[in-house]
């Protein structure tokens, strides 16, 4: 089943080409839409919501043509949810009042709107605070309200535009977990945009990379990130071991592990769960501080390096930021409990 399909979709503004012959076929599940700022992500969502006509080509959402007229567009918008990138919440009403109002704007009768609001706010993790004015919420709570208003009418598909924007690492993980649940537990397909590539490899079933309005690559996340189970380890120096990294490397090599170094980072080939213990014991034995130990897989970012030749004709200005985002994504926390950064 196809949830979103576009065929040679183009959008030209007087000075900028936002989308350039984009052909996509997206199935159910969580799909990440990756691209630098200005790559055309938001433009694509606008077209899919039927709010902005395409210059060329066609697009369909849930099997309905977005350009088929206002009735079809209304049907599409009844069945999809949208969480914008920017702030969109009035500060002087409570989350409950606001989400109830938005549910009614989606056509839900008053009673159903209230019930669905209570359910949805609980699912996104807002409890007592939902009766307080939104103005006093933290960024993380506001993002949850934004997500709740996109889900309150039980859509079949949600568009989440940069849902992790402005969140701290913990809030970001919570939001990514929530997005995963939207599909896994709620059965709602998700199109989530981000310019942080690393985020999506943990959350999405499928990743679409666009740049300069063109499709760079579209494939499932497992294709992108064959799990080779590499551990990244970083340690501090101590008085006894002025070069902690080198010392540890020697110690681990002595324990029979395969190691490559990248500056202060050591990449250890993990043979199994034992490897974590070996590394931990080695670090503790040497009395070094363990800055980080995290699972490392091939990054989606690397496809930019693979495909250097392909998008050479990109629109100006967008490609410069991709190496930066790639390195930003390296702060992905480890999935192993022992991997959380702690100093000894």
């Amino acid at each position, binding site marked *: 089943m196809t949830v979103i399909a576009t065929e040679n979709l183009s959008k030209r503004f007087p000075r900028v080409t936002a989308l350039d012959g984009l052909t996509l076929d997206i199935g159910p599940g*969580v799909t990440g839409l990756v691209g630098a700022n200005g790559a055309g992500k938001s433009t694509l969502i606008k077209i899919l919501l039927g709010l902005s006509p395409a210059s060329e080509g066609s697009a369909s959402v849930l099997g309905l043509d977005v350009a088929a007229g206002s009735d079809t567009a209304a049907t599409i918008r009844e069945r999809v949810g949208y969480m914008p990138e920017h702030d969109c919440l009035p500060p002087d009403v409570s989350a409950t009042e606001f989400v109830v*109002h938005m549910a009614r704007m989606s*056509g*839900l009768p008053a009673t159903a709107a209230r019930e669905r609001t209570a359910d949805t706010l609980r699912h996104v993790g807002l409890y007592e605070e939902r009766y307080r004015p939104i103005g006093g919420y933290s960024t993380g709570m506001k993002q949850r309200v934004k997500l709740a208003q996109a889900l309150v009418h039980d859509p079949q598909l949600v568009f989440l535009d940069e849902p992790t924007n402005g969140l701290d690492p913990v809030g970001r993980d919570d939001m990514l977990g*929530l997005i995963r649940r939207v599909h896994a537990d*709620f059965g709602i397909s998700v199109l989530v945009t981000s310019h942080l590539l690393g985020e999506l490899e943990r959350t999405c079933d499928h990743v679409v990379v666009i740049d300069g309005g063109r499709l760079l690559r579209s494939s499932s996340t497992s294709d992108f990130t064959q799990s080779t189970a590499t551990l990244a380890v970083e340690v501090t120096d101590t008085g006894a071991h002025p070069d902690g990294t080198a010392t540890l490397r020697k110690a681990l090599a002595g324990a029979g592990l395969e190691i490559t170094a990248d500056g202060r980072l050591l990449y250890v080939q993990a043979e199994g769960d034992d490897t974590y213990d070996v590394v931990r014991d080695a670090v503790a034995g040497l009395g070094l501080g363990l800055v980080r130990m995290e699972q490392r897989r091939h990054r989606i970012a690397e496809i930019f390096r693979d495909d250097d030749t392909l998008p050479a004709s990109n629109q100006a200005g967008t490609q410069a930021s991709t190496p930066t985002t790639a390195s930003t994504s390296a702060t992905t926390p480890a999935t192993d409990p022992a991997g959380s950064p702690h100093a000894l």
Partner: protein
Amino acid sequence: MPSDAPATGSPGSTGSTGSTGDSGTTAATDVIHDIGYRHYDGPRLGRGYARRSLFTQSLRAAYGLGRSAKSKVPPALLFGIMCLVALILVAVAIGTGMDELPLEYTDYAIYLQPVIFLFIAAQAPVSVSRDLRFRTVPLYFSRPVERLDYVSAKYAAMASALFVLTATPLLILYVGALLAKLDFTDQTKGFAQGLVSAALLSLLFAGIGLAIAALTPRRGFGVAAVIAAFTVPFGAVSALQGIAWEQDNLGAIGWFALFSPIGLIDNVQSTFLGATPATASPEPVDPSTAAGTAALLVALALAAGCFLFLLRRYRKAGL
């Protein structure tokens, strides 16, 4: 996050509890049951319903209903003044045994125009600026609500709020007049004329107020600009009418009135609704029929123009 549930496309998995988030589900003997996600399969009532809901919500909001206690004060105060004056007039009429009300129904809005100005200036920005300022507008347009629905609901709500403000005191006057056993036919006719005038005023003022308020997302600017849009033309027109009177150019007085919102209403009701003109001259000067007709056309065109302007305004604010 461990990928605990492999992409099950099955929407009905209500029994599954998420491994994250919901506190209380992990404690085995706890009595809190997570009933999981429930799908909604009730009716979806579509655009018409959404438009009516938005209308009701905006109309209530214009009187501070469903909003904070603080935002109830200004509309309640202004509404109270409008009604209080009518009650006093009725009391005077009954108490002193007058054989007619101290003023005509059509005069009421003219005498109390500052109150109406303040109401539209305070409430038009509330109605439209908040959605623009907090960028809530895209949330509407990503739903079945369309621009036309949004603008017509907002416009109708503001016009209705003004009509409630201007027609309620007329109703008080009318009921009072009947209690005082004034002539039924006269009073009913006057009341009906007053209502027509109030309806036209509500339509025109709501349009002007909303159009100006929609220009700026800042509420403070909106309030000031709306007040200026009503009072500055009124002052200017009054001055011109005074000069015209001095120069004995009585025909011009009615035409000058076309340049102020309240002047338009005055011209229309003086020409068609049997009102006494409230021109800025020592004695009332009836506008010519041509000036009255022109005023009606200008008022309707202005209201329509404001509506179209709002439609245009929200094309940009869409996403």
